[in-house]
C-alpha cells in the first residue's frame, strides 16, 4: 500500500501524516504538490489538515480547484482510496467527493481538545480493524467543523451506513453528531478528528492508528509492529 499526501500552501498536518505512514507504519509515502497534475504511483491519497489558501472565501474552496485535486477526483472515481482529515474533509466536501459542508462551529470558537468518537460501522476500508461501537480517543482542532447537510442527505447517509464516526459529546453542532462520513462507494472518507496526531502512545493516544491500519491490506497489517 503506497501513500501520497497532497500539500497545499497552508497545509500543516502533512508532515504529521507523513511521519505516521512512513515512520510509524513503515509504508512507502510521498508528497504530492498541489500544482502536480498527476498523483504518481499511489494507492491511497491523504488530504491533510491545515488552512489551505488561508481558508479564504470558505474552508477548502480554493484548494478544491488545484490541479492535484483534479487528479484526486479521477483517482476517487476510479475506486482509489482517499482520506481527508480536518481541512482535507472540508476540501473533499467542496470538491463534491463527499456530500454536505463544514460550517463555523456552533459556539463560534476554535475548539482544540481530545474527543471520544464512536466507530459506527466497520464496513469501510478505513474502519475495518475496529469493532462497531468502539470508542476512539482522538483530538480535534478546528473552527469550521460543524457538519451540515439537508435532512434528506442525512437520512441517506444513515440508510446507507455511511456515517463512520460520531462524536460522543458533540463539540461543534454537527448535524446527527457526525464526525466522519464516506462516499457512496466507500472509498472516500472525510473526518474532522486527527488520527495522525494520535497514532503513538507517546502522544497520549494511539487509537488513530486503527484508521491507518484499516487501510492496509490484511497481509500488510500482520507485518505492522
Amino acid at each position, binding site marked *: 500500500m503506497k501513500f501520497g499526501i497532497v500539500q497545499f500552501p497552508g497545509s500543516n498536518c502533512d508532515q504529521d501524516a507523513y511521519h505516521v505512514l512512513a515512520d510509524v507504519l513503515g509504508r512507502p509515502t510521498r508528497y504530492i504538490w498541489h500544482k502536480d497534475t498527476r498523483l504518481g504511483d499511489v494507492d491511497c491519497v491523504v488530504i491533510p489538515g491545515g488552512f489551505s489558501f488561508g481558508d479564504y472565501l470558505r474552508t477548502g474552496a480554493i484548494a478544491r480547484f488545484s490541479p492535484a485535486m483534479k487528479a484526486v477526483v479521477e483517482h476517487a472515481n476510479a475506486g482509489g482510496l482517499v482520506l481527508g482529515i480536518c481541512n482535507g474533509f472540508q476540501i473533499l466536501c467542496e470538491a463534491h467527493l463527499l456530500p454536505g459542508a463544514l460550517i463555523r462551529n456552533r*459556539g463560534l470558537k476554535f475548539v482544540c481538545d481530545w474527543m471520544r468518537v464512536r466507530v459506527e460501522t466497520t464496513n469501510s476500508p478505513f474502519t475495518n480493524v475496529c469493532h462497531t461501537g468502539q470508542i476512539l480517543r482522538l483530538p480535534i482542532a478546528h473552527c469550521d467543523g*460543524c457538519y451540515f447537510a439537508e435532512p434528506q442527505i442525512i437520512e441517506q447517509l444513515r440508510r446507507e451506513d455511511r456515517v463512520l464516526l460520531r462524536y460522543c459529546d458533540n463539540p461543534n453542532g454537527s448535524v446527527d453528531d457526525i464526525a466522519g462520513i464516506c462516499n457512496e462507494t466507500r472509498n472516500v472518507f472525510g473526518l474532522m478528528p486527527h488520527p495522525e496526531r494520535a497514532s503513538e502512545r507517546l502522544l497520549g493516544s494511539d487509537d488513530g492508528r486503527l484508521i491507518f491500519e484499516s487501510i492496509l491490506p490484511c497481509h500488510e497489517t500482520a507485518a505492522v509492529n
Partner: protein
Amino acid sequence: MKAKIIVMPKRTVLDPQGKTVLHALDSMGFKGIREVRVGTVMEIELEGGSKAELQKKIDEACHKLLSNPVIEEYTFEIV
C-alpha cells in the same frame, strides 16, 4: 462595469455569527431586532463583454466558486 455580489447563508443553515451579533445588539440596547444574518459582499471589476455575457459569467463564478450552493445562496447586480 462592476459586479456586486451578496452571498448569504441559506435559511436552513445555522448562522451562529448572526445570532451572536443579535445578542450583542440586544445587550447594547438596540431593541426590536428580530433576526441578524451575516453574509459576504464581493465587488468585482469587469472589462469587456455585453451585460448579458457578464451576467452569465458572474452567475457561473458564483455557482462554482464564490458561493457554496450546499450552504449559501447568492444575488448579484452588474452596474
